[in-house]
């Protein structure tokens, strides 16, 4: 049971990683003006892949967490990782609000005030994925 859940957990991480690559590739092309807008279908596909990966990671993570919760709650690295996970979840909801603009407006046409939340959300997303991954690695190593 335990190794299967771990495998599933890692599989969801890979799925989220693939979704992030697709989303980032489309987003960078849009920001650099290589594509005027991002097709709605492509936008939602990438978002759903990342969302499925994230949700899968969280639910399999909760299954892994529960039997050893007393131990993990005493581990600072784990608590920091959970902080990043919470940030990712909240940011995912925010991203869904923000991403629609890419489907009908070129990046260049956005004002600085409209670009700022996109940059902020992207930065939070990057920092949280990297942070959670790093904490998981450190937790495993030490």
């Amino acid at each position: 049971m335990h190794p299967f859940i771990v495998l599933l957990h890692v599989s969801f991480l890979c799925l989220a990683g693939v979704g992030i690559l697709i989303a980032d590739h489309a987003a960078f092309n849009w920001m650099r003006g290589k594509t005027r807008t991002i097709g709605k279908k492509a936008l939602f596909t990438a978002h759903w892949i990342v969302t499925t990966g994230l949700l899968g990671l969280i639910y399999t993570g909760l299954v892994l967490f529960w039997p050893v919760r007393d131990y993990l709650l005493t581990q600072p690295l784990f608590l920091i990782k959970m902080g990043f996970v919470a940030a990712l979840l909240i940011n995912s909801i925010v991203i869904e609000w923000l991403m629609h603009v890419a489907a009908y407006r070129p990046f260049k046409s956005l004002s600085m005030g409209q670009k700022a939340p996109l940059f902020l959300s992207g930065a939070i997303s990057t920092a949280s994925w990297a942070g959670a991954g790093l904490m998981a690695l450190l937790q495993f190593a030490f």
Partner: protein
Amino acid sequence: MFSRLLLAGTFVVFALVMGAAYVTQPHSSPISVRVSPASNSTASVAISGTSGTGYTMTEVQQHNSASSCWAAINGNVYDLTNWINQHPGGQGPILSLCGTDGSAAFNGQHGGQARPASELKNFLLGPLSS
């Protein structure tokens, strides 16, 4: 809209599980990890070291690999082989204890915590004889 609800719902589940885990977390108690062999039936049954009264450090040192990992902790000897792959903190910390007296490492990491002490009891072989 659906994925927004799904994400918000997951956030609530996540927060509830973490909150429940925190609330039901046993308070750290100053219990000792040491299991008195005289008062512990498991230990009494398990004693089978070559000395007959427990396990020597020399015996512990012979089990210094992932395939047979014994460690002396606070006066008792534990067979941690099956715990290597289950340790929530990864294999490294357990592997580093194989064949050694891991009292300092264990107490430094888990001293005063009820759960690790209770987990450890499951792997008790017997007392460490001098």
